[in-house]
């Protein structure tokens, strides 16, 4: 389904509930009644074209986000990506940690096994956090500098050197190891966890992990299909100018 401005947001979310975290990252609160996407954006001073592009990209892997690229500044995209990161670090991951911790506390048997699971999750969390910090401290500032340089028409030597040594294409490859750990985590719980008295808790943990994985994949896809091409274009412009 192609999501459009004049659709009621409630209808869109009925159709694809995976979009709920997306609207929360835009700061849209529940209780939006019969309002359409356009009306909600106008009331909250959000860029409705940008919200639509993100919603559609998230909703349908075949949506051609690049066609809509030029309509919004890269800063907008980056602030969205940062909101997503905040959501992972401050809400998702701590919540899963809480659930796994509950597992270690409530079961009388196999305490060591659950503790091991917890340690593994902590390790995963650390790695994902490191990856996110790198994006926010290195990648995003670089991208924003590119945008400033293009808007102002002047490129500093330092930036030019950075364009030549670091290219955004390198960045696509950096996602992998973090993904493998999440894959392992799911399999350990699905296949090898010793029986627990609280099966429901395990189901909830698994469910959360699957949601997290899907969300991370969409996040990576937004970076790869919207951010990376846009930055590549800026890199080309700057290189041509030099």
């Amino acid at each position: 389904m192609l999501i459009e401005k004049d659709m009621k947001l409630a209808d869109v979310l009925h159709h694809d509930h995976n979009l709920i975290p997306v609207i929360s990252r835009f700061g849209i609160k529940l209780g939006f009644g019969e309002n359409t996407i356009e009306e909600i954006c106008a009331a909250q001073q959000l860029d409705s074209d940008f919200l639509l592009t993100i919603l559609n990209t998230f909703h349908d892997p075949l949506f051609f986000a690049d066609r809509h690229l030029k309509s919004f500044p890269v800063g907008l995209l980056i602030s969205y990506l940062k909101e997503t990161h905040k959501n992972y670090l401050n809400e998702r991951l701590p919540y899963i940690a809480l659930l796994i911790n509950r597992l270690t506390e409530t079961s009388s048997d196999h305490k060591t096994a659950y503790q091991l699971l917890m340690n593994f999750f902590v390790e995963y969390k650390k790695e994902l956090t490191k990856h996110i910090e790198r994006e926010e401290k290195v990648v995003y500032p670089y991208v924003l500098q590119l945008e400033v340089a293009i808007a102002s028409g002047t490129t500093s030597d330092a930036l030019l050197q950075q364009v030549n040594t670091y290219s955004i294409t390198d960045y696509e490859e950096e996602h992998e190891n973090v993904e493998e750990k999440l894959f392992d985590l799911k399999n350990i719980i699905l296949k090898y966890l010793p029986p627990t008295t609280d099966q429901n808790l395990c189901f909830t943990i698994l469910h959360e992990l699957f949601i997290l994985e899907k969300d991370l994949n969409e996040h990576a896809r937004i970076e790869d299909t919207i951010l990376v091409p846009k930055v590549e274009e800026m890199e080309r412009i700057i290189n041509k100018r030099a």
Partner: protein
Amino acid sequence: MAKTIKIVLIEQAFLLAAGIESLVSELHGVFVEQVYHGSEHSLTDKVLGHKPDMIIINPHAIENQLLSVIKTFQQEPDIKLVGLLSTKAPDNIKSRFAYYLNRDEGKFDLLEGLKKIIGNDLEKPAKKTRILSNREIELLKQVCLGHTNQEIADKLFLSVHTVMTHRKNITKKLGIKTVSGLTVYALMNNLVDIREVENRG
């Protein structure tokens, strides 16, 4: 036997191509890697470049080049050539293909047809793959203790290549890719002692 079946589809109409992709996605391990419209320059090279297990062709997509295209593909004995035909397709077209799918059939008839064409080519998940051999367990322990492939090879009198093959098999059997994941597995199953792991370098 192949682990997966890779299909290249030659179909001009988006609707039909999308339909075939949706149908194929119902079968585990079978996927459409690429769709060509049929009018591409050096089509046969492009198609064969994917090293497909199966090529599905709608004759309408390539019209008058059909004969030469089919002839080229027939020189690859390992590739199954499937025509996507309507019930009304003339016999002289049907007979050009080793296999064909009748596009006028319903979903489950089409799936049955596709399964028959695939036959035994698809590797079924082997039974009891979960169980590691003694050698693999020995190797897994070494991995969990933090040893490198070279160190493990020296210790167990194996070549590095063999160590790597074992590691690949362990990952395949357990569905665990990372060293820390493997360590959790080994600890949960008492294959290694937690103190040994904590003492690793």
